[in-house]
């Protein structure tokens, strides 16, 4: 988040208002993200620990169920499983919270002229922070399964950025459409389930063979999760994998921004 450039009270007092434009909205987004975090676990006993507990519990549950089926087919099944879950959850959380970002802030949007992109972007940033918390149990699994820590694991940040951009792009489209068609809320829940089964999150990639391979090639989630798993296993993915992740991210974000920009002026009246 950006820091303010004035800090002396006298200086700051001379200009109370934020200058318009993208670069000067950092404080707004940071306050909105802070609000998300402070309120998400409001009145829960464990509070922010849920960020870590949630992916850990999901992994434990899925591990208990699916280790019966796939354990032998996949080396280091716990790591395979938790990396898939963490990235899949990152996608689902970003898209489905961004989806509601405009509707949820209807009261504000129809009253205060705030840069509208701040709402979906805030949701994406919140999801990113959640994702970073979820990396904690992931690296616990890395340590427990005695996977050596290598500097190439820093490439995980590449797939994270791609996933963030891709999810935000999808989220922007969904948020724009959801203002006009509330059906999107329900359809997207279904679409997420579809993605869960179409992506090798808990089953081995080898399960999709022959006629089902296309499902993998055209599935952005597959490429990003596949990339991350390769990195975690100590490999440096081939250039084509870098390109595939970047392509999906850039296309999705561009489309998202175009759709959002085209529709944003109609939000206040439609809400």
């Amino acid at each position, binding site marked *: 988040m950006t*820091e*303010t450039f*004035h*800090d*002396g*009270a006298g*200086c*700051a*007092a001379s*200009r*109370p*208002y*934020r200058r318009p434009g993208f670069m000067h909205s950092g*404080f*707004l987004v*940071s*306050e*909105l993200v*802070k*609000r998300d975090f*402070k*309120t998400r676990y*409001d009145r829960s006993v464990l509070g922010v620990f849920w960020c870590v507990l949630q992916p850990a519990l999901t992994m434990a549950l899925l591990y208990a169920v699916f280790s019966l089926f796939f354990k032998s087919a996949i080396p280091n099944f716990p790591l395979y499983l938790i990396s898939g879950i963490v990235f899949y959850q990152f996608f689902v959380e970003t898209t489905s919270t961004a989806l509601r970002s405009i509707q949820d802030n209807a*009261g*504000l*949007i*129809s*009253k*205060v*002229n*705030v840069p509208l992109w701040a709402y979906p972007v805030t949701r994406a940033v919140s999801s990113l922070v959640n994702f970073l918390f979820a990396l904690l149990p992931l690296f616990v699994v890395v340590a427990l399964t005695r996977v050596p820590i290598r500097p190439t694991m820093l490439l995980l940040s590449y797939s994270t950025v791609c996933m963030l951009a891709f999810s935000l792009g999808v989220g922007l489209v969904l948020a724009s459409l959801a203002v*006009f*068609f*509330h*059906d999107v809320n329900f359809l997207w829940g279904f679409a997420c389930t579809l993605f869960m089964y179409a992506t090798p999150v808990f089953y081995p990639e080898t399960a999709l063979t022959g006629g089902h391979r296309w499902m993998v090639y055209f599935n952005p989630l597959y490429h990003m999760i596949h990339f991350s798993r390769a990195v975690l296993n100590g490999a440096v993915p081939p250039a084509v994998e870098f390109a595939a992740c970047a392509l999906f991210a850039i296309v999705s974000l561009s489309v998202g921004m175009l759709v959002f920009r085209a529709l944003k*002026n109609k939000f*206040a*009246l439609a809400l």
Partner: protein
Amino acid sequence: MDTLISAKGVSLRFSAPTERKGSIKKWVLDAVRGRVRNRHFLALDDVTFSIRRGETVGLVGRNGAGKSTLLKLVTGIVNPTCGSISVHGQVAPLLALGNGLDQRLSGRENIYLNGAILGYEKAWLRAHEESIIDFSELGDFIDAPVRTYSSGMTMRLAFSIATAATPEILILDEVLAVGDAAFQAKCRVRISEIIEGGATVFFVSHSLSDIRQLCRRAIWLDRGRVVWDGPSEDVCPVFENFSRTPFVPAAEFLPGAGSDGTVPVVMFRFRADGRDLLVANREEMCFIAENLPMWAGEGVAFHAFPEARPGTVPLFRFLRLSDKSHAFAAGDAEAAPFRAAPGEWKEEKTICHVFPAAASGLVPVHRLTSPGVPGCRLAVGDAARDAILAAEPAFAPAAEPFFVGM
């Protein structure tokens, strides 16, 4: 850059709520059936005004007149369907008193959240945090969650945050009804300070005394159109009179009004100086409105005719405000332009009628029919004798109802 807010022919069209496409299925079905209906509602209709630096302008009008919509245009939340609006300067909206507060956060956290939403700088907020808390009189409660506050405390906090800075353009939408009497007085002082600090203020309130006290100028909106833009001492009392008049369908208000659009008109009277025309209820012989520069609703009308000659009522143009109410405007177009009329007024066909009875200062005008309804015409006659003195089929001028702005 003397003019801070300038609206030129601004209209805003809403889709009627009944035809809102809430689902894809409905939208697709309608599209397939070729029935994507476009029934629209004009929230603002050709609004033109400009506000100069340092002016304090009150906005009055009944519920649904378009006041809040106009403020949304000024703050840039919505864009006009046609026309243009330009705003120079930092706009601080008070539209959303309490809207940006999160119930689950503490008062102090909300200062930063709401401050960020209102567009304040972080460093500036940090420097002014204590003065905001002091003004809100919340004391130690500032670190308690807002959900534990009373509604008065919440509004006090919101007001303190919203008025902490002095913006170039301040927009106030019904914000003086905050807290108890003591705090309200404090709010008025703060608003006055901001006004005296040179801010341009756009103020919406149902409290006409506040408007008269704080604003020199007032704009009266009705059904999305500017009825009167003038000094608040002139506009407020007339609006007050107007708003107290309950809406009465023409048929009830004017006995004898027919379903064919005919409205037996009430009484006109010249004042002795020949400058004013009043409209009264025929039955009660009481004057319904004065000092209204134009027709503006059910049975409320007034025109000033500087050049009206005794006994002469030049009729100008028919005004139909809604399906249920009719009125007409009168004036002397040839002698002088109508005081409250826009340029296109002069293009109207005018007819003059001489009424014998007008010599006494009373002009019995009688039956008006809507030119908007095919086959109808405007006629003037004597109600008492039920005789039409003059009829003018050629009169039917404007197919569209007109409205006069300044």
